[in-house]
């Protein structure tokens, strides 16, 4: 049990995907202008990542590994996840239009995103079992949500600040992310990994 807790906390804080592994930066900087959108994105990424990790785990352990096809992992995972997200989008659109209006736009953005692909690849690389894969995926998703929500709150405050013209927009966002990363860095060493 303790092992799983360590894995979870490690994925949320110490090895935060955005701030120490630099995955999912495109959405991180693109969506964090708005707090509501960030909350939505964080939840969408967490759920998609968990589902696609389960799917990828099954394909890796029942198909790719037994048949010695692990060199195809990259190709298979990309196609698998992209088509899975598309399928999910269609199903939600048909059966839950209200949900689609809220989350639909995020689904399109995540279909081919490095964070959603990165977690299943890391799971496969570290030979995680089923439970560990899920814990790792949920932890990574929560970590992403935490980072993007913190960032959005900071950026909303920043709108009233007087910053040099050349730093406006992306420039100051990066420096802000650096500060955020620095504060997360304080947690490193807390959990041995």
């Amino acid at each position, binding site marked *: 049990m303790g092992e799983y807790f360590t894995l979870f906390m490690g994925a949320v804080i110490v090895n935060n995907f955005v*701030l*120490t*592994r*630099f*995955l*999912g*930066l*495109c959405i991180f*900087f693109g969506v964090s202008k708005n707090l509501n959108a960030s909350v939505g994105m964080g939840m969408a990424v967490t759920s998609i990542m968990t589902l696609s990790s389960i799917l990828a785990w099954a394909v890796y352990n029942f198909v790719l590994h037994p048949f010695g096809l692990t*060199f*195809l*992992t*990259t*190709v298979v995972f*990309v*196609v698998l996840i*992209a*088509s899975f997200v598309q399928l999910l989008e269609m199903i939600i659109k048909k059966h839950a239009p209200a949900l689609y209006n809220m989350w639909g736009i995020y689904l399109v953005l995540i279909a*081919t*995103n*490095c964070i959603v*692909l*990165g977690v299943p*690849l*890391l799971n496969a*690389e570290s030979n995680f079992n089923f439970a560990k894969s899920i814990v790792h995926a949920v932890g990574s998703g929560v970590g992403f949500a935490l980072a993007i929500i913190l960032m959005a709150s900071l950026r909303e405050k920043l709108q009233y600040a007087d910053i*040099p013209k*050349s*730093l406006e927009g*992306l*420039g*100051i*966002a*990066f*420096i*802000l*992310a*650096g*500060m955020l*990363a*620095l504060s997360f*860095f304080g947690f490193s060493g807390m959990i041995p990994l």
Partner: protein
Amino acid sequence: MKEQTNLWEIFYKGLFEQNPIFRLALSLCPALAVTSTVVNALAMGLSVMFVITANNVVVSIFRRWVNPKVRVPVYITSIATIVTVVQLTLQAFFPVLFKELSIYLALIVVFAIILARAEVFAMKNTVIPSFFDGFGMGAGFTGAMVLIGAIRELFGSGTILGIPIMGDWYDPALIMVLPPGGFILIGLMIAAFNIMGEYQDKLKETKAAISSQDAIQRGEA
């Protein structure tokens, strides 16, 4: 002759004007993740350059037979295949490098810049311009990666390509090779590119103003 200048222009625009990292702010993940040393940055840059050029060529050859409705899956499959080739090659000949780049190598598959060039350029042009477009974008990307890598390695460990540069008096600022330093450096570099871009625009404006004044004076004379 005209053809040549066009090809040069296609190649050149990826270097500065539309630099993937600083101007378009695309594919930032690797720009931060693997640039703590010059060697890693260069290896990553060259891998991306190969993938983007090869993919542009493949897409421009097959564009006639691809139904527009399924073009994105076709791009993704093509990119993923080329990336696998790069992964296997590096794993066979440079195992240490392969280990350092680890997961980021596989994630070249979802780089927005590669997909964007296939969609914007290779789908509409023939093989040779597409080749140069990919080559230029790849070169711009590699250049930016090496630049970031050099600054981070120089300040973070006082070396370039592992050779000590700064001498004994220099106390390395460890933050530069750690993740936060990467973020802050890229923020400052984007600002620098913005200032340079503004300066160029101003230069063009003044030039235009001077020439129009000249024209008026000549007209009056």
